[in-house]
């Protein structure tokens, strides 16, 4: 018995020393944020009876209207964000409910769409009676075709049921041109070596489309130490809020390409804050490089209806750059800076015909392309063998690891071709809302 009690006491000691996580308060507030006030039931039977009479009367009289507006998309709860769920609860959007069945029994049903100025959302169900809905290749080349062009898929998510006979998809597409009337929802089924196309056509009901709540040019450039980020515009619609921006225009991109100093953005971390403290939940983002240069889009949930103020908080950016730095390893224990990033060579040693180089950098710094020049010939990095993280008392985390290059020689030069690092900032951009 004593052993058990000592184990229990030991466990209690651990619990006593445990700190309450800092996020507790924020999580509690967030949990309550979406809750609607509870209405208390009135015990007045006359009011109840009157209400019942009224409902009977209204339902009887307007049955068709109610039947229509009361309809919601069922079964999409898991794939909808908070905003979409609310809109669905309100019965927004256009119900389509048309399906196409392929020869092998697989069917696709377009349950409904939601349309606003920033996107066309399609809610569709793929049904496979054989229960192989997960391994089936159906959503390549899904698109909407109209008279004025085609509207391609941007992304989305789906959820399958337990016996794998059904997936409910929620996909976002480009919004159709404003004169489009009839749309054709096209999809391909790849089954073994054969390919079959399915089409579902429907008339777009613009009356059920939702407009824009806020559309603004931002046109502000934030200069970080090594990177310039330009915020171009914001488009807020009832389904989501999108911020558009760019890192480089096409001229800057061409210039860097020629000088061999390309940069690639890995991650841009921003927050969208409404009414001073309401953080709008992020939905996703994308980056692309094309004829417009390097551009990005970050999408968030819809803005609150009582919008007083809006700001973007830039937290950090992680960029991958060409550097082409040569480090002679004859001098060990060296400390250097590459684009302001601290790099320390701790140790260089040979073992079993390989060369090992131990380095320390900041946690967010990664040598994304590194080679070893041994007597003039290039040796590729085989792997990174150890990993150690040290917390510094003044904050920040240092990452020490050993790089393994298969080969040895007299003259060793570490060639760092590309490097990724994160720049942290706390810059705020105000967006006028009036």
């Amino acid at each position, binding site marked *: 018995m004593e052993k*058990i009690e000592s184990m*229990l*006491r030991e*466990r209690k000691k651990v619990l006593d020393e*445990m700190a309450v996580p800092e996020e507790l308060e924020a*999580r*509690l*507030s967030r*949990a*309550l944020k979406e809750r609607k006030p509870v209405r208390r039931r009135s015990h007045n039977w006359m009011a109840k009876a009157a209400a019942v009479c009224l409902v009977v009367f209204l339902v009887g009289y307007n049955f068709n209207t109610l039947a229509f507006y009361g309809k919601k998309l069922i079964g999409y709860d898991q794939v909808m964000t908070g905003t979409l769920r609310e809109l669905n609860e309100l019965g927004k959007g256009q119900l389509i409910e048309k399906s196409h069945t392929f020869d092998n029994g697989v069917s696709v049903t377009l349950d409904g769409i939601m349309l606003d100025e920033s996107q066309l959302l399609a809610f569709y169900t793929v049904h496979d009676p054989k229960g192989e809905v997960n391994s089936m290749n159906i959503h390549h080349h899904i698109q909407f075709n109209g008279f004025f062009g085609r509207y391609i898929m941007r992304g989305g998510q789906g959820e399958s049921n337990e016996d794998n006979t059904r997936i409910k998809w929620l996909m976002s597409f480009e919004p159709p041109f404003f004169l489009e009337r009839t749309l054709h929802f096209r999809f391909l089924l790849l089954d073994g070596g054969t390919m079959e196309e399915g089409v579902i056509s429907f008339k777009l009901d613009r009356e059920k489309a939702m407009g824009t709540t806020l559309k603004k040019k931002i046109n502000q450039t934030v200069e970080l130490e090594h990177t310039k980020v330009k915020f171009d515009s914001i488009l807020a619609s009832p389904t989501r809020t999108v911020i558009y921006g760019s890192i480089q225009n096409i001229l800057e991109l061409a210039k860097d390409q020629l000088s061999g100093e390309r940069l690639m953005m890995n991650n841009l971390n921003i927050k969208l804050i409404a009414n001073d403290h309401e953080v709008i939940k992020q939905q996703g983002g994308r980056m692309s490089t094309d004829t417009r240069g390097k551009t990005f889009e970050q999408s968030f949930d819809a803005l609150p209806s009582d919008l007083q103020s809006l700001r973007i908080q830039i937290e950090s950016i992680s960029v991958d750059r060409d550097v082409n730095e040569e480090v002679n390893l004859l001098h060990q224990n060296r400390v250097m800076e590459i684009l302001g990033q601290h790099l320390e060579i701790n140790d260089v040693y040979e073992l079993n015909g390989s060369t090992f180089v131990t380095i320390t950098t900041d946690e967010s710094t990664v040598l994304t392309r590194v080679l070893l020049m041994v007597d003039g010939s290039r040796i590729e990095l085989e792997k990174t063998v150890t990993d150690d993280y040290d917390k510094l008392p003044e904050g920040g985390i240092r990452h020490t690891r050993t790089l393994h290059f298969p080969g040895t020689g007299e003259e060793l030069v570490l060639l760092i071709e590309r490097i990724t690092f994160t720049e942290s900032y706390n810059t705020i951009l105000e967006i006028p809302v009036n």
Partner: protein
Amino acid sequence: METELLVKKAKQGDKDALVELIMQQNQGYYKLAYAFLSNKEDALDAVEDMIVILYEKIHQLKKVDAFHFWSKTILANCCKRRLRNRNKIILYDSLEEEPYESNYKQREDHLLLETVLGQLHEKHQEVIRLRYFLDLDYEAISRILKIPLGTVKSRLSTGLKKLKESLGGEG
């Protein structure tokens, strides 16, 4: 006095007041959840479950000064529901927080303890967790779990006996 005012505000639907009430005793709530669930994420989730229920039910609370006991009863129920749902799988998430080796023995003991505790019947588990992990007295346990004082005592002794049996040997 302050608690009373906050409870009144919360009863009128003031969300901030409700959060503040919980934060007054955040240590107590979090530890209660942790004692049941043994990991941070689940404990936080359970406290979240609790506050949503509190918000919906607070207008039914009659005794203002019983707020904390009442909400801890609800929290205990939320934790039990989560425990049942996760089928006795023990999640482990805070390994990287501390140097691994120095805590190895302790963790091993903890894992063993959680495994055998998890095999006990729910009614025995909960009294052991509350009595030993949170150091609650019999009366507090009886109020939170809504069972008579005598039952608390008998379940505790049966629970300990069973725990000893599962650990085997002299215990």
